[in-house]
């Protein structure tokens, strides 16, 4: 049985991305319109497990190509429906107004993802410098043997973890303040990796892209040597499909 792999939802009558191959090398097509919307699909054997690196890349490539020519509501990787009729009847038709509204909000916007990582041991050093309690306890524990200091070390580690958490919150706030004014919306990615200072996505109207990039560059400059800032984009609005 042949199923329909769904990449995303686009405005009706969007031209199919030319020469674009989807999962398994099958060509992508835009389904017939359903009110103001349609879907980008490609045929796929219905029982075929998805999840190789190649599948993931193909999904990203198709969504990205579509995003260059129109607004798109990307679907989560791995969405397969019975056939094109099912896409129409079960996905597009029942939710067409909602999807059309969301698409309208995403028009002429791209996503940019910003991630900041502390350089080396900078965060640990700051925490020790800023919190005298941590410094004192660490100095007291340094020369003791492992068994005698276990309780103290658990306490110390907990204090450090908490202090790092506060630091990350404060730094993420700085990113938000610097960039939100250039964006239409913002989403924070929960991250528990302690060297991640900030991990956020911004929905940026194309007309404001330069301002956004300039602000990100200025922040990267300001944090040089402390936090390494990485900007990925323009991207399809993966984080703003519910917005």
């Amino acid at each position: 049985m042949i199923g329909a792999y769904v990449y995303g939802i686009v405005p009706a009558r969007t031209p199919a991305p030319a020469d674009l191959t989807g999962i398994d090398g099958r060509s992508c097509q835009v389904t017939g319109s359903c009110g103001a919307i349609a879907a980008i699909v490609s045929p796929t054997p219905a029982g075929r497990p998805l999840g190789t690196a190649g599948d993931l890349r193909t999904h990203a490539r198709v969504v990205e190509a579509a995003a260059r020519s129109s607004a798109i509501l990307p679907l989560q990787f791995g969405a397969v429906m019975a056939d094109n009729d099912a896409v129409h009847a079960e996905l597009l038709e029942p939710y067409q107004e909602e999807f059309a509204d969301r698409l309208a909000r995403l028009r002429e916007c791209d996503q940019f993802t910003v991630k900041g990582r502390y350089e080396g041991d900078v965060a640990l050093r700051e925490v020790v410098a800023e919190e005298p309690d941590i410094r004192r306890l660490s100095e007291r524990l340094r020369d003791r043997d492992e068994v005698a200091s276990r309780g103290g070390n658990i306490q110390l580690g907990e204090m450090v973890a908490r202090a790092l958490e506060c630091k990350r919150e404060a730094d993420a706030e700085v990113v938000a303040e610097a960039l939100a004014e250039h964006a239409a919306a913002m989403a924070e990615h929960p991250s528990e990796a302690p060297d991640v200072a900030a991990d956020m996505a911004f929905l940026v109207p194309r007309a404001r892209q330069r301002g956004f990039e300039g602000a990100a560059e200025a922040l990267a400059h300001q944090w040089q040597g402390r936090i390494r800032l990485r900007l990925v984009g323009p991207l399809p609005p993966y984080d703003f499909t519910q917005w």
Partner: protein
Amino acid sequence: MTTATTRRGGGYLDRPSPSGLAEVVDLILDKGLVIDIYVRVALVGIELLTIDARIVIASVDTYLRFAEAVNRLDLTENGPKGLPDLLGEVTSGGAKSKTRGALEGVAEKARETFSGGDDDDEDRDGDERNGHRARRPAGRGRW
């Protein structure tokens, strides 16, 4: 890895290509409109990968590592061991090498999908006994 880091403009900002696998995994796994909220005919996702990936700080084991890192910090000059090294240790439990993490993880998940994936449960129990779950989906080179 195909992630090409290009520096533009003033040059303080990293601008990696969004098509590198690490970026792709980071960007699209568990993102996007979830079809099963609406209707689900067949959905073979690999969303577990990112859920497992997050390092849980709240464990004694991890606290001890933080303490160790701080105690080893040489406060007068550049200490030998810092946060990235510490993370390397915490991470090494699950993801072997970090660059392999993304590629293998995805492939592994695909294999589990084929085979039913009992092994995975055992791995996870093991991780929890160690007091932390430490899988990262995406190798980002810097670790």
